[in-house]
Every structure is written in C-alpha cells, then in structure tokens.
C-alpha cells in the first residue's frame, strides 16, 4: 500500500512504513489471536460471575436497595462510580503519592490506548471502508490532527513512564508493611507467595517496556526521516531521536534497527493484551467495574443469607458482585495494614481472605492465571483440588472468620470498593449453623435467646441500675415521652458501666428532657448478634424490640451503645421502625451547645477515640468533637482518627469470644497510640470502649498516666449545677450561655 505522493509533504507518517506484506499479514494474524485470547479471558470471568447467586429483584450485579443510609451513604450511581474511577480518588485518599503515580499511569495508559484505537480507526476501519464507499482511501491522520495527536499522546506516554517508575521505585526501595505478603494465617505445611511478587514485577516491567520501546521506535523513525521540522510536535519522540543520534545511531543505522525494535514492541504489546484477563492486569477491568457497582450501604445494613441456606457453603452462594470484588483486588494491602485483627496477630487479614477466595474460585472455574498465585506443598485450603471443600471452615479457617471485629476499616480503606465484612458474616452464618464457635460465644447467644441479654441476667433486672437515682425514669410504655432511651446490655447490666448510665440519666433529667425506658421489655438490639452470624436470633430480637417499641409513645430513640445505634438506625427500618435514632453524644452536644446545660469550662488536653459504629459506620464525627471543645477541653487527635479510627477489638461479637490467642489486644495497641500523645485523658463514647480501654490502661501499665473517661462524665464534670434549669425553674428563664 502506498500513499499518494502529493501527500508526502503533509505532516503525517506512514503506517507500516518498514514492514512488508508478509509482516503485515503476520501482524494481523497475531492480532486476531490476541483479541480472541483477551475476550476468552473476559468471557471466562463473566461466566464465573454468572455462577454466583443473583442479587434480589432480578438485579445481577448491584445489590438490591431499600434505601440509602441517611447522611452517611448515597445511592450508588454509574456517574459517581465513573467519577471515582476517573479521579482515582479512592487510591490517593490514604496514600497521595501512590495515588498520584497511579493516576499518571492510569491516564497515560488510557491515552496510549486511545492513540492506538484512533490509528486503527483511521487505518484499518476508515482505510478499508472508504474505498468501497467513495472509491478512494480516506484518512484523517495528517496535518494539524497528526501534530496534535503526537503532542498529546507523547504526553500520555511520558506521564505513564513517570508513574510506572514511581511505583517500581516504591516496590524496590523499601518494604512498606502494606506490600509485605506474609500471611496472617499460616498454613501448617507452609506456603510461598513468591509468584505474587513475580506477577507484580512482570506487570510493571511489561508496562514500562511497552512505554519505553514506543518512544524508542518513534525516535528511530524520526531519526530515519532526518528530523522533519513538524515532528518537533512529537516532542518526546523527537528528543528520543536526538538521543539515538547522540549515541551514534544515524538515519541509516536507524533504518536497520527500526524493524527489530518494532517487532519487539508489537509482540510485547500483543502479549500484554492477551495477558490482561489472566493476571494482575485484570484489575484494569475488574476494579473500575467493582467501583461502579459498589454499595456503601451494604456493610451498614447487612444482606440477608441466601434463601434456603443458613450461610455460604459454595461458590453458588456468592453474589456476582462479591465474585467481581475478588477479581478487583490489587493486593494493595491497605486493608491488611489497617485491620485490627491482623495488627493483633489474629489469623485474619482481609487481603488474604479475598486472595484465598479468589484462588479458590478460579481453581473451580479453571481460569488460568499467569503467576500471581500462592503455592503450597500440599493442596489445602484455597488450593484444594476440587470445589467440594467448605468455604467456611476449610478455605477460610474458622478462627480467621471469628477474628473479625466488623470494624469496617477494610471496607473503608479499600480503593476498589470490595465489601469484605458482609462476605465474612455470610461465612460466619454457616459456622453458627454448624455450631462451630467459642463456648463463651455459644453461651452468650443462648443467654440472649433465653434472657434477652448476653450476661444471662434475668430480663426483669434490666432496669435495676436506675435504683440509685433520686428520681424515677418514666416508663415509656405507660406515659408519653419525647425520647425513648434504648440503654443496651452493657450499660444496663455491667457493674462498671451502670454508673455511667446513672450519670447520663441525671444529666437528661436535670436538663429537663422528657425521656423514658422500655424497662424489662428491652432486649439486646441484635447488632452484634447479626454480625456474629446468628440471623435467626437477630430476627427474633428485632421482632421483640419492635413489639416493645410499639407499646411506647415517643418521638425519637436515644441509644447508649453505637452498635445499637447502627442497627436501630440502619437495619430496623427494613423491619418497620420509622422513628429517628440519635446517639447520646449527639444529644449531649445539642444540650451543651444550645446552652440548655450550663457549663463551667474544664480546660486540659484530652484525646478522643471514635467508636467504629459511630464514626466510620454512621459518620457521627463532628458532634463529639464539638462537645469536647464546648466543654473547654483541648482535643489532641490520635494519628488514627475519625473514619480511620482503630477498633478497640470488641465489635462483631468479639467481646463474647476468647482473645487469649492474640499477641496484643487491639485496645492495647490503641492505648499506646494515645499515651504517646502525652495527654492524660482518653475520652470514649461507647460503653464497650469504656470497658475495653479501662482494661487496656491496666494491661499496658499506664495506670496513673491515662484515665479513660466517658464523654458523659466529661459533661458531668463541667456541669455548672448552680445554673441548672431544673433548679432555676421558679426563676425567670435564664439567658442560654454557650
């Protein structure tokens, strides 16, 4: 094929300038093979997702939505998903430099992909179709378009190289804990993840080599053409050509080297395309797809078990979204790094969990994978020969599943929108059905089933903590109240925490708040019961509590426990609750900031621990901070704060399980973080936190150095009792003071 010689002076270049007909035929033959391989891989993956259990209401990928979690999540949309993908914002959120490097590679690669596509459109499509339509070959690959094309896509190539170089340097220079592939769960017979690293490096070097050889060829071509002036627009190629010249490769030699290097580049590019769906590079497709279908409401409001099954047993129980999520994982290790279970030395790492499930699924579906696989001397766990192994118990060990505190740090930090926690709960449901659990957990569940509280105390003793008060809290079942206080098990029954409940009751009473209790009708709310995986018991508790709430006349629910807050606010509405739910820290904030509670500023430095279920789950982050500052304290933040808060280790039912296998309790790890700040007061807003961290102060030997204080105690200390409304009721209404 020759171009019209009159066009020779126009700014363009010949496509296949140096290749003969045979070479072109070979190229097209290989291209067809490559594309066939690529799409075979895609089809295998999509077929695999189809093996899963379709989400309800006929939706294949996106989980069914009842509604969003108000003020916390918004309904996922394709537009928002695409925006997240385009900006790489979830990658740069925690690690800006990595995010920036990835953004460069991402857009650089897309740019080069676009460049190839445009060229193919012009040459292969338009070039072949136009003679049939208009009788001669039409091309737009010349003139200003050609110049702009080269200028823009040279930039794409340069940023891709810069990004890739940064990412390579990061891997090579120092060991980030996130990139340490050591397993949290150590199989007895040993394992090797050497191929994970080989897979990573293969991916990086393939990209780098593709980008670099692209410029080298361009340089040779420009060198060969004696540096036409207009090729200065191809600025990087031009510079590379000058570079060739500088090392002694003149136009003549360039013409000899060019075809060899061209073939090298082309074969590598084709191999790369074929390699994508069978390797780490598959994340280029699966991760954006997962981000688009990701649903942030899913962990806050757990999905039901598969119908007819108590929990997950096989691949067919996983939703297509969960299976896609497995493919989306890039092994970035952020979840591994933030996980309190992994930090504490438990056998759970959310990363390993996802990778194990992925390997287990891919083996069943016979999807070949280039490197990027774990090896073991014996075929155990995820490597077991067939799909008959139980996913909950064999593929993922029971203790691994039981180690999860459901703190949601993994889901929060995952840059590709994987929802680890719901999958863990689905597998726990299977363990509960089999009765594979700690004896202490079993007795807690039996207590909850029989007495409605995990302590096994008589249900009628629930409101006994109110005995020490000098007033009577109204029974909301007998008289109308504004606030219904759902106290929760720990705040009701635990000796260490009953005093805090009385303090809160006193403050609400003196502030003139109308509030009442359900008394013996209250039961465990079931948040942690559900997260343990005991769905039947959860439903029983919901039914009981809703019946009890129906007897009461109130406007708003207040909870003490953030766990209770989560389930009442996010899960009970699906069962019929339609009242707003507030956490006591929010109510106290209102009372103090509105001046309804008169305050004498306290002074002093304190730090504040965000409870997982209050901060990360429900985004109540500013109210407690405003309250602490409203009380005149200076807040010193821990390095892990707000949505990055570090779990105390009690959530997800862990508080009912043995923790003696841990190397260091999460609460101790957290306490050391706080002590390092040099403050002496550790403020909490959760009864479980109060118990966990009071213990941690002792076990880390920080008695005398650090005091754990509930936020209600802080309010109590700051309270100016002389100006309390209840004591001034007879006087004229006082001016509120903030």
């Amino acid at each position: 094929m020759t171009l019209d010689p009159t066009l020779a002076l126009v700014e363009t270049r010949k496509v296949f300038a140096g290749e003969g007909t045979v070479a072109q035929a070979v190229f097209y033959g290989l291209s067809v093979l490559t594309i066939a391989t690529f799409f075979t891989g895609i089809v295998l993956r999509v077929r695999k997702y189809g093996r899963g259990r379709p989400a309800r209401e006929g939706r294949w990928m996106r989980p069914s939505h009842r509604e969003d979690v108000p003020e916390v999540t918004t309904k996922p949309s394709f537009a928002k998903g695409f925006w997240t993908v385009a900006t790489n914002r979830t990658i740069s959120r925690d690690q800006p430099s990595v995010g920036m490097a990835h953004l460069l590679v991402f857009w650089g690669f897309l740019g080069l992909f676009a460049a190839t596509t445009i060229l193919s459109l012009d040459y292969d499509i338009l070039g072949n179709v136009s003679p049939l339509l208009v009788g001669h070959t039409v091309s737009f690959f010349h003139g200003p378009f050609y110049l702009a094309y080269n200028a823009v896509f040279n930039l794409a190539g340069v940023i891709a190289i810069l990004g890739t170089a940064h990412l390579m340097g990061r891997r090579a220079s120092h060991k980030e804990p996130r990139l340490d592939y050591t397993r949290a769960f150590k199989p007895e017979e040993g394992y090797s993840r050497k191929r994970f690293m080989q897979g990573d490096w293969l991916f990086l070097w393939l990209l780098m080599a593709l980008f670099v050889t692209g410029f080298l060829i361009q340089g040779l071509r420009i060198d060969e053409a004696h540096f036409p002036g207009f090729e200065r627009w191809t600025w990087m190629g031009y510079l590379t050509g000058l570079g060739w010249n500088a090392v002694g490769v003149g136009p003549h030699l360039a013409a000899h080297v060019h075809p060899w290097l061209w073939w090298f580049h082309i074969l590598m590019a084709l191999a790369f395309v074929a390699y994508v769906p069978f390797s780490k590079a598959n994340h280029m497709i699966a991760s954006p797809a997962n981000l688009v279908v990701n649903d942030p409401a899913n962990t806050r409001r757990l999905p039901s078990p598969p119908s007819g099954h108590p929990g997950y047993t096989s691949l067919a129980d996983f939703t297509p979204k969960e299976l896609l999520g497995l493919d989306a994982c890039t092994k970035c290790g952020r979840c591994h790094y933030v996980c309190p279970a992994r930090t504490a030395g438990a056998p759970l790492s959310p990363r390993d969990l996802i990778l194990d499930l992925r390997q287990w699924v891919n083996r069943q579906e016979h999807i070949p994978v280039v490197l990027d696989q774990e090896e073991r001397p014996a075929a155990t766990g995820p490597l077991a020969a067939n799909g008959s192994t139980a996913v909950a118990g064999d593929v993922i060990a029971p203790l691994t599943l039981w180690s999860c505190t459901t703190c949601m740090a993994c889901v929060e930090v995952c840059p590709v929108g994987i929802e680890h926690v719901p999958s863990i709960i689905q597998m726990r449901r299977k363990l509960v059905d089999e009765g594979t659990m700690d004896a202490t957990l079993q007795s807690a569940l039996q207590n909850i089933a029989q007495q409605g509280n995990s302590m096994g105390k008589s249900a009628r003793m629930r409101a006994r903590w109110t005995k020490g008060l000098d007033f009577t809290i109204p029974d909301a079942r007998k008289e109308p109240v504004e606030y219904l206080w759902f106290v929760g098990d720990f705040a009701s029954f635990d000796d260490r925490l009953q005093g805090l409940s009385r303090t809160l009751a006193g403050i609400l009473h003196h502030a003139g708040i109308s509030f009442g209790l359900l008394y013996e009708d209250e039961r465990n709310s079931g948040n942690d019961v559900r997260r343990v995986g005991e769905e039947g018991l959860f439903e029983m508790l919901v039914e009981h509590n809703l019946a009890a709430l129906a007897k009461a006349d109130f406007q708003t629910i207040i909870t003490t426990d953030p766990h209770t807050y989560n389930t009442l606010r996010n899960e009970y509405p699906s069962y019929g609750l339609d009242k707003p739910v507030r956490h006591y820290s929010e109510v106290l904030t209102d009372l103090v900031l509105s001046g309804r509670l008169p305050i004498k500023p306290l002074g002093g430095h304190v730090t504040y621990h965000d409870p997982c279920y209050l901060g990360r789950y429900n985004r109540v982050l500013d109210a407690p901070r405003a309250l602490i500052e409203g009380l005149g304290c200076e807040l010193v933040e821990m390095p892990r704060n707000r949505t990055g808060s570090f779990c105390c280790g009690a959530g997800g039912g862990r508080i009912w399980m043995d923790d003696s296998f841990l190397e260091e309790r999460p609460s101790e790890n957290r306490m050391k973080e706080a002590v390092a700040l040099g403050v002496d007061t550790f403020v909490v807003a959760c009864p479980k936190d109060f118990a966990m961290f009071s213990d941690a102060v002792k076990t880390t030997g920080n008695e005398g150095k650090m005091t754990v204080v509930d936020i209600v105690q802080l309010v109590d200390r700051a309270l100016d009792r002389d100006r309390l409304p209840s004591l001034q009721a007879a006087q004229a209404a006082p001016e509120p003071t903030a």
Partner: protein
Amino acid sequence: MRIVVAMRQLADLVEELEVDDSGTDIDREFVKFVANEFDESALEEALLIKEGVGADQVEVVAVALDEPDVDQTLYTALAKGADKAVKLAGVPEGWVSSHTRASAIAKWLESQQWDLVITGVQAADDLDGQVAGLLGRMLGVPHVAVVVSAVPEGNVVKVSQELGGGTVAEEEVAMPAVLGVQAARQSPRYAPITRIRQAMQAGGLSEETVEVSGDGGRPTVRRLYAPEKSGQAEMLTGSAADVADKIIELIRAKGLVKS
C-alpha cells in the same frame, strides 16, 4: 435402635425465686422456665450415639411432661437433631415430685418400643438424682447413674461412670437400660434460632396424654424457705498491705501455719 431422652423444665435460676403463699412451692407466676441442663447433656449424648452408630439406624425421641415453656425445649431438641418430640399432657400443675415424674414417663414408655432411656442425672429440685433410678425400677431394667459417656456395642452399652475422687469406671450394661447422664462427651451443641423456628413451623411436636397416679403415701413438702443466715462473712478493708497483714494474722490465729 430407639433412644428416649426424658427432659424436663426448671425455673430459670437467674430469676429471683420466691416462695408462694402456700409456703410449700415457689411462686411460678412470673418465673421463666428453661430446660434442665443435665437433660441437655443427656440429649447431646443421645445425638452423639446417633452420629456414631449411623443416623439411619438410631431414632432419638425427646419426651417431656407438659410444663411451662416446654415447647421451646422440645423444638430445640428437634432443631439439634432429635427425630421426634413428645409432650406428655395430663400432669397436674405446679411442682411435680420425682416419683410422679418417673411414673408418668414409665407409663408412657409401656406403649413404646425403646432400647435406651437417657435422662439427666439430677436437677435443681432433684439433687438426689431419683428420676433415673426410679425409672429403672419401674421399667424393670438396669440403671446407671453419673454417666459421662455411653457407646452402644451390639446389645450392650459401654458406659463411663464418674465415681468419687475423680475415678472413672468403665462398665457394660445390657439394653434395655436407663442412664442418668452427668455430662456428655462434648458440651451440648448450639441450636441456631433459624433451625428452632423451622422446627416450630414444621410442627413436629406430638402430644399424648398419660394417666398419672398420685404420690399416695410418699413424702410431701411441709415447708419451703430461703436458706437462713448462720454467721456472716467478715469483709477485710484497707490498703492491699493492710488486708494482707490481716489475712496473715488470721491464718496464724487458726494455726494453719507454724511460727
């Protein structure tokens, strides 16, 4: 092989029990009733036998008198793996003596085919463990108490029986027999609520009426009362060092250590 597990309800001891106006029984009106924990071990041992021998060769039948909240216990037994659950009606309300209980169950067993009766070795109101022994006598079969393991072999059951001082005797008893179980080979399994609810929906609970003869001539309860205070504990107060000193003083005063 057919195993009958005799179960019963007891007032939940986490409740504050009170003596009623008659002065001979607890006030049953607001008290919650739960399964006797020894009976739960008996059921566990029966289920372990079933799993050991083969699910298709052993039938486990849970039976209980119609006492408060007994349905919950029987459905839980079904959820755990019992094949059948029977509630025996016709029992007088209030406290049932061990004799009455044993005779009601023995009467029902007359109409049944069975190889082994397993029940809890004792209950909070039967600390002497009479029910299993009475059943053995009434049915005219051997009885073994304080059983901690039972494994059938042919026509006999190999039984481990806990004796005093931590000694365990291994014995053989010919079937049919009655066993009073102290503890099963493993702690009782958990019954997920979903399974209990499924059992309730399936409604596999059959109700049968038994004629119960009175306790004629047997001992009757004259008075029921809370333990009377005899002496009081002395609380040591003060710093840890003070308390330690006082303890040492007491130990010396009691002559527990020399010098």
